């Protein structure tokens, strides 16, 4: 792995799509709309990501985790208002959307989020994206991570 640091040509994001002549990906993955929709918003990505660790979570815990992550603070330092905002957007938008996409199920009485039928495809896509980025970073020698 050559790790030579090229000069800073910032702004020029070095994403190269290499044609390898080996199209081993099944075309079916182009049709997984529910996967792409589930992952289209950062808060939904976080919820899907959290499914990798905990199969079952309370909405209020999830809101704390999301707020801690977004505000870059430890969970104990999340303010009431940050928690409220995260909770409300999960409850009113993102969890219902993930339920509609078959990725999670939500028990309203206990306010618990659990994986549903499509959860595995979505987490597999996240894992795949992570692996692909890792190998690209290694190939490029530097990271272009922004946002």
């Amino acid at each position, binding site marked *: 792995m050559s790790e030579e640091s090229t000069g800073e040509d910032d702004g020029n994001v070095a994403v190269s799509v290499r044609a390898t002549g080996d199209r081993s990906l099944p075309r079916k993955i182009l049709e997984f709309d529910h996967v792409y929709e589930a992952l289209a*918003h950062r808060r939904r990505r976080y919820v899907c990501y959290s499914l990798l660790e905990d199969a079952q979570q309370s909405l209020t815990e999830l809101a704390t985790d999301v707020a801690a992550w*977004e505000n870059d603070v430890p969970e104990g330092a999340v303010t009431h208002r940050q928690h*409220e*905002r995260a*909770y*409300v*957007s999960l*409850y*009113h*938008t993102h969890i*219902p*959307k993930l339920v*509609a996409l078959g990725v999670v199920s939500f028990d309203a009485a206990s306010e618990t989020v659990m994986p549903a039928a499509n959860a595995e495809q979505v987490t597999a896509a996240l894992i795949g994206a992570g692996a692909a980025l890792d190998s690209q970073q290694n190939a490029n020698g530097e990271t272009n991570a922004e946002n």
Partner: protein
Amino acid sequence: MPKTNNGGAGSGTDSGDDVTPDRDTRWQQVAKRLYDPDQDDALTSVIVFAIADAEGVAPTEVDAPTLYNVVDVAAIEGALFGARPDGTARETTGSVEFRYAEYLVEVNSGGWVRVCEPTDPEPR
């Protein structure tokens, strides 16, 4: 009092033909909040916080129906505040209104979210 159809009214369009079922209803603003697209506060949260103000409860107690069941907030966000693909702001002027429970909620391109409730019709 007008009948509310349980949040199923969807969004109104400001065409000549009024799609809201109760044209004669008088609405009175009971809460408003400002949404700033540049802040990290989602439009969903601002709308729910404004409804909570109107109801006089904590935002986490606004629980039924979910906004998701009533309107596509992401679509409103994109329609009124969405930037061009190059990131520059559009010069959008307009508003969207929808029913939530007994309330009429209006979001305008200036970022104001207004929550109105019906007032009793005046005697004629």
